[in-house]
């Protein structure tokens, strides 16, 4: 969700709760769990044998990572109005992605490694976009307006961390994907220090803007605003040298996404149906959305590769190429769906789930009949 804040109206955010659910749920899903996991793995799991963790991550993927891809597809294709807004993304792009997949199947040695390399760099870039997007959402919710300067500082920090981490991962041999080799690039010695310098400059500048805001507002900036960037730093800087942690990073990216996508989905559905707001309604809609996306995720990552199992290639290779293709498709779709011109889209990013769970209180001046 790289730039999904462009449509959020500037509301009096200071009076709103900064969280989509509550402080501990938001803090856990937006980055807290990933930081705790990193600390735990660093302390107790530094060995080279990552097999048990891969198995655990695979099981969790069924409920977290795969549904996050499905949620994007579901959001684009759930309404004809959405597909009409983005015809090339909805109907043209799948052909191009399938073209790339067929090229990989056709020439698994001459094309597939480069497609994996594309995915290998695009994936952390996409994570960076989401970090910036989520930071901007929480900043807006807290009344900390991110202008051009603040966004530049934040982006410098986040994207330099990505560059540092991605090059570091390559140098440390994270080049295996579903048993296939990702080509390793050589990098000049100055590249990592340069990325670190930009990262530090961005961090200093953004911290300065945050401190200035605190001084002007005479209150502390809620830590949730900084948490996505801190988690991103952990993922790509200290986390990049811990192989066991690299395996679980996609899960944490997906958790961030699912939290916000779920709340937005709830808001849009409940508003669209005009149903009475209640916790029962929220639970039912959340379960329905969750079940659909778990099914969709299994279809994308297991069903699609099975359709090509007849090819004279190892099934792991087919599954890996399809997984990279689903990822690349997701990067495109994710870039557009958060810019949908839904009238309720912008307000959905400012909602707290409690507002959907309880009946709306009558608003003075609106609910009362106007005296003739």
């Amino acid at each position, binding site marked *: 969700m790289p730039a999904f804040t462009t449509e959020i109206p500037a509301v009096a955010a200071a009076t709103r709760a900064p969280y989509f659910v509550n402080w501990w749920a938001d803090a856990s899903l937006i980055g807290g769990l990933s930081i705790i996991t990193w600390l735990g793995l660093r302390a107790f799991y530094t060995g080279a044998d990552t097999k048990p963790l891969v198995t655990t991550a695979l099981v969790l993927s069924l409920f977290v990572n795969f549904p996050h891809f499905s949620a994007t597809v579901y959001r684009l294709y759930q309404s004809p109005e959405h597909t009409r807004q983005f015809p090339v993304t909805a109907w043209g*792009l799948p052909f191009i992605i399938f073209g790339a997949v067929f090229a990989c199947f056709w020439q698994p040695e001459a094309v597939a490694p480069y497609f994996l*390399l594309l995915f290998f760099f695009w994936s952390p870039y996409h994570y960076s976009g989401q970090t910036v997007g989520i930071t901007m959402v929480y900043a807006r919710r807290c009344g900390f307006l991110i202008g051009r300067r603040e966004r530049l500082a934040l982006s410098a920090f986040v994207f330099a961390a990505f560059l540092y981490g991605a090059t570091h991962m390559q140098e440390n041999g994270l080049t295996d994907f579903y048993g296939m080799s990702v080509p390793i690039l050589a990098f000049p010695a100055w590249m990592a220090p340069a990325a670190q310098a930009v990262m530090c400059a961005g961090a200093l500048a953004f911290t300065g803007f945050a401190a200035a805001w605190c001084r002007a507002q005479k209150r502390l900036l809620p830590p949730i605003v900084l948490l996505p960037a801190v988690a991103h730093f952990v993922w790509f800087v200290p986390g990049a040298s811990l192989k066991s942690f690299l395996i679980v990073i996609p899960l944490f990216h997906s958790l961030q996404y699912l939290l916000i996508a779920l709340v937005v989905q709830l808001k849009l559905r409940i508003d669209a149906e005009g149903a009475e707001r209640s916790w029962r309604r929220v639970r039912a809609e959340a379960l329905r959305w969750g079940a659909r996306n778990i099914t969709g995720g299994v279809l994308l990552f297991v069903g699609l590769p099975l359709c090509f199992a007849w090819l004279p290639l190892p099934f792991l290779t087919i599954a890996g190429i399809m997984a990279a293709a689903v990822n690349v498709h997701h990067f495109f779709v994710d870039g557009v769906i958060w810019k949908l011109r839904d009238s309720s889209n912008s307000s959905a990013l400012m909602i707290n789930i409690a507002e959907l769970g309880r009946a709306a209180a009558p608003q003075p001046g609106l609910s009362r009949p106007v005296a003739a």
Partner: protein
Amino acid sequence: MHFEAVGLSAREAFLAAAVTAMVGCALASFFLAGRVSERTHVALAMLIALIGGFSLLTLLVPAGREIPLAGALIVLGLVGLFKLMNQFEIRRRPRR
């Protein structure tokens, strides 16, 4: 493979397929002129850039594996491509 019979290497055969896809996107844009929005034309142009960028990647990565500066330029080029694709099929604000 059959393409070897006509003197093409695996990579050349892939590049021929990629050029065909780029021509296909360009022709789609041409034949849809006046029937689809400017945004759709821009999206088709970006698909051409994506296919071209990926084709270049397959050509340049062998150099990037040997020459550090080439490796850095490839990564920076990829970042530029991702940034461009982030603008895929979105509405642009009119220029002032």
